[in-house]
Structure formats: C-alpha cells, structure tokens
C-alpha cells in the first residue's frame, strides 16, 4: 500500500470507476485538462479522453440538470461543484429533481449520480469558499449524503457512491485533501451507510465527520493527559444515519459530544443529539453536547480560527460532562 493524499485517493476512485464502468462520466467546471481546482480529476481526460471527463459551460444548475437528463438516458454522471457555496444555483435541481425523480415516477426512472462538493473551511479561503452545507442536503429525503474523513474512506466511499443506485451528495472536506495515509484499492472496507469507530475509548464518545474527524482524534489523544479515555465515531454517512453504531457507542460510554464545523443552530448536530438522546436516555450520565461553528456567516480567513472547533474547545466541552456517575446539567 502506498501512502497517498485524500485528493489522490479520490482521483484513484474516479479513475477506477471510469475504467470499470462505461456509463461513468465526469463533468463540471475545469475538471478536464486542468484537473479541477483541487486536482481531484487530474489526468483523467488525458488518460481516458474527453468523452469520459469533460468541461461544461459555467453554470451549476446547468451541470446538475444536464446530469439529470444524462442519468435518465442511462449514464452515471459524477459532477463536480467547484466550491460549496457555488452549488447553490443548482439547489433547485438537487432538491426538486435529483432527490425526487425516483419517487415521482414510482421507480420507473432513477438517477444514479454523484454530486461532488468540496466543502468546509480551514484553508484560508475567501468568502463563499468555505461553507458547510450538509444540513441543506441531509434535510432532503431522496438524497444520500456522505463525507470521508480519511484517504481510505475517500476511495471506498466514492467508489460506493458511484455504484449507488441512489443519487449521492459527496462532500469532500477540502482542508483534508492533502492529508496522507496508506490506501488499499481492494474496497474491503465498503463504507456506505455505516459509521465507524475510529478510536475505541471508555469514557465519552466524540461524534464527528469529514473535516472534524482528524480534530476529534487529536482531541482524543490530548484527552489522555487528563485521564479521559475518548472514543471517536466517524459518521461517514450523514444520510442515512447509522443509529446502531452511534447508539452502541454512547450506551457504553454514557457521554457524547457532537462536533461539526457548520453553524450549530438548526444544524446537523441537533439531529444527532436528538437521536442519541431518544435512544440512549437511560444510559446517559450527562446531556449530549455540541461543539459547532458559530452562528455567523463564514468569517474572513484571518478570523476563521475562531469559527473552527479546535482541540481546546472540544476538550473544554468534554470537561463539562464531568466524570461522576450521577447526571449533571450542562454548564453547571
């Protein structure tokens, strides 16, 4: 196994999918000879031809709507939205058509397609380049929403997503594009639909996904100094949600903190807290807490360190759970 970056793992997944299935087509803005602004499609046009990986006019609704028609016509489009906030012009196509066509036609038409969206911040990007838009998509029935936290998952999840008969919103944490690890291309760890325990622990469960998986793992490592044994669950699949894995973990540890970069209010973490509370109430020793981005528009780069949950902020929140066996009140 060679050590590669998440961007390279995604590139490998795209190449292997194009190689294995004639119906798979990649298109979007600058994905052709340039290889995408993050180079995720690097070299694919050169190796497989313009037929398989091509540039389109600059129009996000156009890209997604065109992909809808192509999927109706038997292809499996994998399209790239250049950055999170630039997918919004395509929002209507995604919610009104991509998510609903199978249901509207009672199964007569399906849309096996993947919409890749580099998302979230932490790269010093200017405004409109750092949105965490997962809640918009997870709130839409008919879509699958996944996000890898590691290069290995990036490869496995993208292959699974391309094979999926359901449309998938594939959120790529851009601050992790350059993180490296050895990756196997055997797809043994098929990742679709299932959360995974990234690090086992006894005292508290940190629930994270995408860009925050690495931060949660760093927090767990730092927590050992405090004498806390922290378990980290990486959701991977935001919709559907893997209740079993999460519930099993929290029932064992009795404490949970949900971490995400997106604004907290009305956010995805609220859903996770609700589910965990509903299913683990009797095992909980403390309220389930959240560490999230602030409820503000994504800040300019010089201020983004205040926006992003970091090890200290997560550790402080973990500390608020305390280590008594009796229930305590948040913030007490």
């Amino acid at each position, binding site marked *: 196994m060679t050590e590669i970056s998440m961007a390279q793992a995604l590139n490998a997944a795209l190449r292997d999918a194009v190689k294995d299935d004639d119906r798979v087509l990649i298109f979007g803005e600058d994905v052709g000879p340039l290889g995408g602004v993050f180079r995720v499609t690097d070299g694919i046009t050169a190796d497989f031809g313009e037929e398989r990986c091509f540039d389109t006019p600059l129009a996000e609704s156009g890209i997604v709507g065109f992909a809808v028609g192509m999927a109706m016509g038997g292809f499996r489009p994998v399209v790239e939205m250049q950055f999170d906030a630039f997918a919004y012009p395509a929002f209507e196509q995604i919610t009104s058509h991509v998510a609903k066509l199978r249901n509207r036609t009672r199964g*007569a038409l399906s849309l096996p397609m993947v919409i890749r969206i580099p998302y979230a911040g932490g790269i010093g990007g200017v405004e409109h380049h750092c949105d965490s838009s997962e809640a918009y998509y997870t709130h839409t029935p008919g879509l699958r929403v996944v996000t890898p936290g590691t290069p290995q998952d990036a490869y496995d999840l993208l292959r699974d997503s391309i094979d999926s008969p359901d449309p998938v919103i594939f959120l790529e944490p851009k601050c992790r594009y350059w993180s490296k690890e050895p990756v196997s291309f055997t797809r043994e760890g098929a990742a679709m639909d299932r959360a995974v325990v990234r690090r086992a622990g006894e005292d508290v469960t940190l629930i994270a996904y995408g860009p925050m998986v690495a931060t949660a793992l760093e927090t767990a490592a730092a927590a050992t100094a405090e004498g806390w044994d922290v378990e980290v669950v990486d959701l991977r699949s935001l919709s559907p949600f893997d209740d079993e894995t999460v519930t099993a973990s929290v029932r064992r540890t009795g404490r949970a903190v949900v971490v995400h970069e997106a604004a907290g209010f009305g956010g995805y973490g609220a859903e996770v807290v609700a589910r965990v509370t509903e299913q683990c109430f009797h095992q909980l020793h403390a309220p389930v807490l959240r560490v999230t981005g602030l409820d503000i528009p994504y800040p300019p780069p010089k201020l983004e360190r205040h926006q992003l949950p970091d090890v200290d902020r997560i550790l402080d929140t973990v500390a608020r759970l305390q280590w008594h066996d009796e229930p305590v009140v948040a913030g007490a």
Partner: protein
Amino acid sequence: MSRETSAAALLPSGVPVRFLAEDGTRVDEHGHYSEPPSERLVEAYRLMVLGRRFDAQATALTKQGRLAVYPSSAGQEACQVASALALTDADWLFPTYRDSVALVARGLEPGEILTLLRGDAHCGYDPAETRVAPQCTPLATQTLHAAGLAHAMQRRGEDSVAFALIGDGATSEGDFHEALNFAAVFEAPVVFFVQNNRFAISVPFEKQSAAPALAYKGVGYGVRSEQVDGNDAVAVLSVLEDAVAHARSGGGPVLVEAHTYRIDAHTNADDATRYRDRAEVERWRAADPVRRLETYLTTENLLSADDVERFRAEAETFAAGVRDTLNADVEPDPLSLFEHVYAVPTRQLAAQRALVAAEVEA
C-alpha cells in the same frame, strides 16, 4: 456537422410563419416551409377536437371536486397536438403542467395523465415506457433534463430527439438559458418549444420580456430559432417537423416560439378578469386554431361534414370515458409513500413505515 458561425443563419423569419389566415384561407407567409400532407392535417384536426373536449372535461371535473386543479390549454391546441405529432415513439417529450393535451395526443391514458392533478400520484404514467417525462412544475427546469437526455441519446448512437415544452414566463428563468447554452455547446438533438400564450399567471408578456420575440433568444446561444403563428396548426406542424428533422439529422438544437393565447384563466383557481379585459380574449377567440383548421380543410374538401361529425362523436365518447375514470374512487395505498424514496430502503424509513402502518390499522 460544423457549427453555424453566421447569426443570420440562426435568425427566425421576420414575421411568424403562417399558412392560414384567421379566417382559414391559405396565405403565403411560410418561407421555405412546406405544407404537411393532408392526412397529417386531418389527423391533427381530429386530435385537436379530442384535445379541446378533454380540456373542457377536465375543467368541468375541477368544478365537481374530482380534480384539485387544472391548467387549461384551450386555444393552444395547435401547439399541443403538433408537439405530439412531430415526434416518433422513440423521441422524448418533456411537458409542463399545462401540456396535458399534448400527452393525450401522444396516446397516453387520460386517467394516468390526470392522477397528478387529482392528487393520486406525482406521475401516473410510466415515463420510461412512454418516453414522456413527468409533467414538470418547477419552471424551466425540465429544459436542462431534455438537453442532457438528448446528449445521452446522441452518445448512444440513437437518432432520437428530446422535445421540451416551456411557457413564455419560464423563459425568464436561468435554467432555460443554461439549457439553450448547454444544448448548443454539446450540439444536442433537442427542440425547445415556447408556447407564448401572452401570460405567466397574471403577468403579461410586455412585463416579462423586452425582446421583440422570444424566438430571438436562441441566436445568442448559437441555436437555430424560428417563430410561428401558434394558432395555425398547419404552420406549427410544419415548423416543428422541420425543427425535429434538423435536430435528428445532427444539426443541433432548435428553438421555436409559437405566438398563441391562453383563452382560460391560468388555472380554475385564478380570476383572469383582474388582469385582462374581455375584449382582448374575444379578439383571440376569433383566431381559434380548431375552427381555423376546420374551415381550411372543409373548404379544400379534405374534410367532410361526416368526418367532423365522427370526430366530435369520438371526442364525446372519449370525454365520457374520462368522466367515468375520474369518478371512480381510488384510494392510494398509504404505505406506498415509503416506496421508491431510495432504491436501497433506509432503516429510518422502515421505522416510519411501521408507524404509519399502525396508524392505518387503528
């Protein structure tokens, strides 16, 4: 096919293409277009009579509470029928909510067309089998699907065409422009057919667009464009057949604008007297497409009084069938709500299905 680089070659004719004057007499305002064979025109007439009767029946059914809502296309029969006649069974039709008569003309079951408006199902027919996309409600979004599907068929080596219907108001939406641009860049075999019926709910064309005609909108994208008298069935059929042939032969997309008029309100729920006067409607009634074609065909001895009688009787029988179908009470299965949300059912939905099943049981 090499791309057209001269704008002149893409421009629509200066006045809408027309074969018939409002009184049904033959006029020569049709440039290079030729008149379709008389059997085609008689068939168009038959379907227009059928379509008008269907439309009246559906409107009546809203008054009886059988349909939640119905957007009438009375006055637009020439456009509706020609849209179906210009296509083969292998071509794909992308209709809007208003285009039910086009679906009748294509041979779909009225009961299956009206399930949408009756509230039984989002799409009552099988789009894969009929090659008719679900009737689209979000404006202009279907034009992109048509472009994408046209491109898919082209890649597969099929010589089928995608045909997208759109209203005048919807041409202001971004998706329409993105679709024209995509179709042109990919040289996709798609025909965009704008039925300019002068209103988007209450907003008249003058407040919708400053263009002298919507047909000009194709030129800037490199799309061949044409305008036609939308109440002249001979002209609409001729122009649409030509557009479809152009797209089918690899010539790229075509945009056709039909100048027509919405005789009824936007839907039965809307009061058209608030935004237009009766005189205007009466002026357009005089341009009625069904009567115009009937006059022409009878004057030319292509249609007998017997034929007219026969077609009307057929339309009556058809309408009675529509009534019977819609009057039968069918309760959709509540548990079908959980089908086809995903190809691979989710555990969350299984739990909610159990909840609804228990509620239905109780």
